[in-house]
């Protein structure tokens, strides 16, 4: 089936909702994602991979007697979709009745989609040659630095995504998004003492994307600063988290304040609303409505309008982030964080403070700047953290040398309570972001 314009996708979604109703679904939700992808990987000055493709996916949720069935398909022929709907209606009878399930109630709140500026028309003016040259240039600049000994390659990627959502409560909306990404991965040092580093910039608007020089410079800097690492002895020391590491720890916090992990009791923050979970300098926000940001969207995967939610206000846990189901389970309101089957962040960030990152480093007498972690080792049930890590050792407020082959261990609850300084350097590089922070003691295992 050929669908060339968005009116037809909207029509398809609406007609499947009607088809579901006629065939016995009490509630039905249809989402369609129509994406166009371009990506190029270059390495050592040559194109490695060039991918260009368009594809569409459709997702369904059907409820009958408060029993739920899901389905998805990449085959958008009407035949397949209609049988998928019928199958789902049949399958729903095998699920258990669940009073909390179902579509969100219609909302009167309307978001002005164009004010969010999620689509950059410049995407259609960039030709393949320009896109390839951005990746080429980035790698070339990086390789000019003699300390760089090998390259994982540079990539440039664009995406154009249309999202359509319709449901049996009368919801029928769509929005368009663009995405641009430029990255490079490098190695420095000899074969037997290699270090690796990378940098990537991703934005909704092309003119906000970091230029090849910036991406290359950051990647080089992040790679070579790890050269000639030392091992350190096992000890407990205060730590500084670089912004990317703050984002990492916030990602873990997100998992622990997600309404799903709360009702499932798989978070150490169960039953902690209105309690102090960190010191009063900490404010954490989830905001789906910041214009031009990576985590912005007018409504979530269930059509609930997005909003700005204070998750932690001056150290007090104020809200869990919920989809409709988790909200009903917890007797709360949806915060517009549905991802379809679970909960996802919008723009989830730690409010910046007033210290410059330089001041934070000079305030550290002896300790570690955490620059990168490796592995898994996050346990939301307890808040326990255990990871392989890389960092920079600080003595008397100055970076002394890089360290590697260490592990760090600690607990998210304790880290939140021990945040001493918050930087002013938030960059919103990803949907989850934060500035440099200084925290109390964590265990570093080394020799």
């Amino acid at each position, binding site marked *: 089936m*050929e669908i060339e314009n968005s009116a037809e996708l909207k029509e398809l979604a609406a007609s499947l909702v009607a088809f579901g109703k006629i065939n016995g679904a009490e509630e039905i939700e249809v989402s369609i994602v129509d994406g166009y992808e371009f990506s190029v990987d270059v390495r050592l000055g*040559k194109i*490695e*991979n*060039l*991918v*260009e*493709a368009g*594809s569409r*996916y459709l997702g369904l949720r059907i409820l009958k007697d408060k029993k*739920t*069935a*899901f*389905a*998805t398909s*990449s*085959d958008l022929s009407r035949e*397949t979709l209609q049988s*998928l709907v019928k199958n789902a209606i049949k*399958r729903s009878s*095998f*699920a*258990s009745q*669940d009073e909390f399930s179902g579509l969100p109630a219609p909302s009167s709140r309307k978001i002005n989609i164009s004010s969010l500026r999620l689509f950059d028309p410049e995407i259609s003016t960039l030709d393949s040659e320009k896109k390839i040259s951005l990746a080429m240039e980035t790698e070339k600049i990086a390789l000019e630095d003699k300390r760089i000994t090998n390259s*994982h*390659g540079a*990539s440039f990627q664009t995406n154009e995504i249309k999202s359509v959502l319709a449901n049996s409560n009368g919801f029928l909306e769509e929005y368009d998004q663009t995405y641009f990404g430029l990255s490079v991965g490098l*190695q420095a040092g000899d*074969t*037997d003492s*290699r270090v*690796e580093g*990378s940098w*990537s910039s*991703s934005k909704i608007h092309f003119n906000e994307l970091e230029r090849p020089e910036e991406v290359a410079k950051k990647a080089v800097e992040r790679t070579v600063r790890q050269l000639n690492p030392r091992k350190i002895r*096992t000890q407990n020391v205060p730590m500084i988290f670089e912004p990317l590491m703050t984002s990492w720890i916030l990602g873990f916090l997100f998992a622990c304040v997600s309404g799903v992990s709360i009702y499932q*009791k*798989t978070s150490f923050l169960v039953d902690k609303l209105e309690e102090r979970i960190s010191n009063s300098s900490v404010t954490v926000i989830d905001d789906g409505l910041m214009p031009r940001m990576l985590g912005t969207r007018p409504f979530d995967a269930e059509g609930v309008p997005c909003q700005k939610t204070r998750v932690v206000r001056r150290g007090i846990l104020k809200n869990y982030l919920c989809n409709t189901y988790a909200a009903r389970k917890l007797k709360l309101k949806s915060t517009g964080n549905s991802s379809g089957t679970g909960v996802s962040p919008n723009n989830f960030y730690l409010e910046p403070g007033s210290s410059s990152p330089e001041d934070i480093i000079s305030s550290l007498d002896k300790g570690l700047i955490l620059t990168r972690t*490796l*592995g*898994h*080792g996050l*346990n939301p*049930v*307890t808040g*326990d953290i*255990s*990871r*392989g890590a890389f960092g920079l050792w600080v003595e008397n407020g100055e970076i002394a040398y890089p360290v590697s*082959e260490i*592990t*760090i*261990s600690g607990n998210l609850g304790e880290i939140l309570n021990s945040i001493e300084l918050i930087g002013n350097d938030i960059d919103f*590089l*990803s949907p989850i972001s934060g500035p440099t922070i200084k925290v109390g003691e964590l*265990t*570093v*295992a*080394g*020799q």
Partner: protein
Amino acid sequence: MPEIKRRTFLKASAAGLGSIIFSGLNCKGIKKMKNPPHLVFEDHFHFSQEDLQKFLNISLSRGGDFSEIYLEYKIYNSINMEEDIIKETAESISLGLGIRVLSGEKTGYGYTNDLSREKIKKTALTAASIASGTTLRNTASLNPVQFPHNFYPLLIHPSQESLEEKIRLVKKAYSAARNFDSKIKKVKVSLMDLDQHITIVNSEGLKVSDARPLIKMVCLAVAEKEEKREAGFSGGGGRVGMEYFAHVLTPEEIGQDAAKEALNLLEAITPPAGEMPVILAPGHSGVLVHEAVGHLLEADFIRKKTSIFWNKMGKKVGSSQITIYDDPTIPNFRGSYNIDDEGTIPKKTLLIIKGNLTGLLQDRLSAKLMKKPLTGHGRRENYTCIPIPRMSNTYIDRGEYSPEEIIKSVKKGFYAQKYQGGQVEDSGKFTFSVNSGFLIENGKLTSPTKQATLIGTNIDILNDIEMIGSDLKFGLQTGSCGKEGQTVPVNDGCPTIKIAKMTVGGQK
């Protein structure tokens, strides 16, 4: 920020625990079958051979060296149970094709799930644009190939089993965990099965199809005592039929194993931090060979000289006790396949023999550029992905020590038992996340321990391997491996292994 080109190994939903004896899978029930039903490939594309030939010709119209079409139809089913109810069921259909053109070291790729001839021709032209010649190359005429083997012998195909029966299995696992102990407060069980049909045609005249079954059951159990809360995981599956859950691993065992781990963790302590002797438990610790060796022998990293092993072929890289294989042909294993995702018949591949580096995992592109034979390790997650060299079932072969004498040899150290996963970078630095283990004191396993991280560099660890046990086991058929954004099912295994020293991240 998406970290680029890093590889991770994740056991299913932080799970993938428990282990089975290698030979057990073959002798318990499954091998007894006389004539396993050969899977019938279902064609969901309805293109004639001439159509496919025409698309291939278009894809080479700019003068590429090689072109290929990967046609994939997949149906995926899942059932979730938590809070004592069947929460939902899901069905996913995926239908699409990817067209690849190779021109020297360059790859052009296009994919589409709109199967109109016009869209496919456009996709072929997109892929073709990587080449810059004008000579129209003719493709060899397609010659359908049948292979004689079937690495997925089974009785009851998961896609043929009724939803009611599958739900019954899920409930069994759920009840087994929930009722195991009053301290078990929360259980979650998922059953997922995938039926993948692929056809690969290429400009060398290959036309080959495969139909791959895959099923997995995973269980999470949360135990609570006073203010403490801990989670345990278990699971099982593979390219097996439903009879697996009757004869090899029952849902009850899966549920009980998850509950037991959660309960054990309630009593566990955080291990001490620092450098110490480490013993890796058999089976689960296969993640070591996956991270520390397997990834770095994927031919793309060798060819690009980013792997620490690139200049060490034929050289000794570790203790002479170590022999390592990657074997995609082990019947019913999660990482096995009849053909790889480029249509190559896979081979059991020797990677390291007695500490010497001897083999690589090859895909077409790397094999061609390196002028090496194919090994059948070109894999892709789905039709939207370019195939790259990947592992299948990777393991350290058995050694000569009994597990008891290995444990006895350590005065003070750490025994790593179950893992959440691992990660490696090309420099050879890798980590494992250990979910549960034990302290070793005076040659005995003593206090149970909880979450810890092990970190090391592969060359050091391979040289620090002091003893290898005779007890080869495999992980529990729930693991997946991620590389460059593509996730594929894998398995790995090893016997009990003693490492002279490794950094354990615990508490000081």
